[in-house]
């Protein structure tokens, strides 16, 4: 991972999205900026109200900073093959290292809290004066914080029956609803601080050597999780970080994968393209399932597909486009007008209004993932019925216009990507039938409709005037999602039409080396380049046997990662910094898929198109 050096502490400023690293415990994620400020945390689960949301409003959102007083040169890294973050501050007087993690394992025979966020700062050389400022602002700042020092029971912040308790190895003073401390560490000194969450009877954490044991135990747990990795190609760093980031965004009890850890980080700074991504999109299903299976993470893939199929039973035969980690549709979208938004990007929204849109591509995604599940782990009879019901819905509705992959909030339209995914849904049903499953489907009707959809796409999605597949029937606008046609097995990547389509997209949607706008709407409104589109381009080029070009795009895009290898949803083509919610599972899963494609021979990739 490349090292990035900068100075912090010279003047107050708001850290950018790019400057954050993520830690988590499979239920929640915290973001830590380069200056040691932890300014994003939702407890107890990903979509809970934030206790620290300084990323969205430095004044009202709350943060917890541990870092040196005065300027420091900063470098960061994750400990090898873990989600344990180390931030190294080099000051004129000495060097201190801050270790941040959420504990995922503790072997000691004593009670543990439901959640523990552990921060340990140690001085390696010289002496360093450290400042701690702990300013929780529960419920996005809507709940007034009441900090109660209770001696060895910790500094408590109660919200209803929920308890946040800060324990530390240095005394803190409560001033104006903040806990502050200043202390000097000499070489060899260390101080650990633990923030716990409990809605049950709390456990009081031990610090000192016990904190070090929990750090090591957590490192071991992450490395153990990573041990099934089968990838041994040239992009191991990208693959490892992508897997660990995706795992951070996975809900451990169920296997559900949320899109990103945050809400309302803007797709365009200062604008209103700010959405809540702390939910699970069915759209990501196919890429996620394939990536987990192909990299050797069989249990995670099965858990994810199991969650997917269990969740979708509740709304069968119709699918919502997104669910929370428990499989419930989110409540109505709400704006938080009291928050200033990231660099003035308002409104801040919680929950997601797109959940009620008709997006026909979801059916193809779920059926594709289920087909992979069958090939790798089998399906039970109840799931077969469920899949047949989804197929029935597609048979009855594939001609309808919808809101599509980008969830546009205008009138529904006939979209190429959605129509292709309707084809995928029926194609996968027929594949399952050929394997002796999906016996309830009307074979003739499904085969006939699959052929009709193909004819429909071939006739209406191709625009001879611009020599490209278009985003919407009858239009002349481009969309990078049509590069997925070979991925789903709809069309050979080496076909004349796909070659021409790629040429048009490369000319009109390329935002710079390795970067692509999602479509011409995105270009018009000034969004960033979508990371997932770069992954689609790499996959397309490998399938088209243009390996060198694929490698160039991949390498250029990977250089847009932040200093610890994380990506947001988008990249600003001008600054190459992250935009949108962060870190973004879809971008990382796309990169996993692209790295796998690059590691295979082209003929193998072509065979991997469609389902297994």
């Amino acid at each position, binding site marked *: 991972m490349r090292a990035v050096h900068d100075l912090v502490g010279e003047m107050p400023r708001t850290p950018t999205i790019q400057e954050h690293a993520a830690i988590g415990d499979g239920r929640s994620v915290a973001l830590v900026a380069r200056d040691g400020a932890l300014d994003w945390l939702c407890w107890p689960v990903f979509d809970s109200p934030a206790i620290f949301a300084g990323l969205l409003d430095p004044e009202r959102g709350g943060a917890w900073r541990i870092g040196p007083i005065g300027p420091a040169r900063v470098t960061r890294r994750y400990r090898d093959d873990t989600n344990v973050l180390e931030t190294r501050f080099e000051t004129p007087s000495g060097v201190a290292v801050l270790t941040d993690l959420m504990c995922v394992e503790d072997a*000691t*025979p*004593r*009670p*543990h809290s*439901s959640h523990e966020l552990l921060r340990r700062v140690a001085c390696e050389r010289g002496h360093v004066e450290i400042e701690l400022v702990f300013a929780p602002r529960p419920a996005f700042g809507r709940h007034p914080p009441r900090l109660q020092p209770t001696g*060895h*029971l910790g500094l408590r912040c*109660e919200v*209803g*029956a*929920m*308890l946040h308790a800060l324990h530390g190895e240095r005394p803190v003073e409560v001033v104006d609803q903040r806990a502050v401390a200043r202390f000097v560490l000499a070489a060899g000194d260390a101080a650990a601080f633990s923030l716990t969450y*409990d*809605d*049950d*009877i*709390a*456990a*009081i*954490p*031990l610090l000192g050597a*016990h904190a070090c044991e929990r750090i090591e135990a957590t490192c071991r747990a992450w490395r153990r999780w990573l041990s099934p990795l089968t990838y041994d190609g040239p992009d191991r760093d990208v693959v490892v970080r992508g897997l660990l980031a995706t795992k951070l965004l996975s809900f451990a009890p169920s296997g559900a994968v949320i899109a990103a850890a945050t809400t309302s980080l803007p797709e365009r700074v200062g604008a209103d393209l700010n959405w809540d991504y702390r939910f699970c999109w069915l759209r990501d299903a196919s890429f996620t399932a394939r990536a987990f299976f192909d990299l050797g993470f069989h249990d995670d893939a099965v858990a994810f597909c199991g969650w997917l199929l269990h969740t979708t039973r509740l709304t069968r035969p119709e699918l919502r486009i997104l669910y929370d980690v428990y499989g419930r549709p989110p409540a109505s979208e709400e704006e938080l007008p009291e928050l200033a938004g990231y660099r003035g990007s308002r409104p801040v929204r919680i929950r997601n209004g797109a959940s009620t849109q008709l997006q026909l591509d979801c059916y193809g995604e779920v059926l594709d993932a289920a087909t992979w599940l069958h090939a790798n782990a089998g399906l039970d009879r109840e799931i077969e019925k469920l899949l047949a019901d989804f197929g029935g819905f597609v048979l009855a509705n594939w001609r309808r216009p919808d809101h599509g992959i980008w969830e546009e909030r205008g009138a529904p339209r006939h979209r190429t990507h959605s129509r292709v995914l309707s084809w995928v849904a029926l194609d996968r049903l027929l594949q399952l039938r050929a394997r002796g499953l999906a016996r309830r489907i009307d074979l003739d009707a499904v085969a006939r409709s699959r052929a009709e959809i193909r004819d429909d796409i071939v006739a209406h999605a191709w625009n001879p005037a611009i020599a490209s597949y278009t985003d919407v029937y009858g239009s002349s606008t481009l969309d990078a999602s049509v590069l997925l046609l070979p991925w789903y097995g709809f069309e050979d990547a080496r076909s004349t039409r796909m070659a021409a389509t790629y040429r048009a997209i490369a000319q009109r949607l390329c935002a710079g080396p390795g970067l692509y706008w999602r479509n011409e709407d995105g270009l018009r409104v000034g969004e960033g380049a979508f990371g997932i589109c770069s992954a689609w381009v790499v996959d397309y080029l490998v399938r088209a046997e243009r390996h060198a070009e694929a490698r160039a795009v991949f390498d250029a895009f990977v250089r847009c990662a932040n200093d610890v290898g994380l990506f947001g949803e988008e990249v600003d083509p001008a600054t190459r910094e992250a935009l949108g919610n962060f870190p973004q599972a879809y971008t990382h899963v796309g990169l996993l898929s692209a790295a796998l494609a690059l590691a295979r021979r082209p003929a193998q990739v072509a065979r991997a198109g469609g389902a297994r």
Partner: protein
Amino acid sequence: MNVGAWLVWGLGATIVLTTLLAGSQGLGLTRMNLPYVLGAMVTTDRDRAKVLGIAMHVVNGWVFSAVYVAAFHVWGGPAWWKGALVGAVHAAFVLVVVMPALPGMHPRMASETRGPTVVRGLEPPGFLAMHYGARTPVSVVLAHVVFGIILGTFYRA
């Protein structure tokens, strides 16, 4: 003493009491989880402690219901209001006497004044169990009064 009635209504009242306390926790009124406190006496695994604690709590409730039944016999027979009164006294005793003394009895509970230690890491309840949330006494009193009302209403000597 009608042993059959005591066994049936003692169990029924205990199940209602346990459900009310768990419901209070689920609704965010309190963090107190008596089955967990009991189960944590024998295991450090939080999930296992809750399961074991439910069984221990049911047995405890059964035993305590015998005290209610004895009180009814001494007091001229059962009545719902007598049950409520005994329940209120029981709750007050638990909150004022038992809870603050719990760290001295529980092998994994931290002391108010010392620790925590490697073994003793559970948060102590404090006076009126207020460390588990300011509304904890309300849910405890309510649950025990209902416990007593059930016994006073349905137990027949």
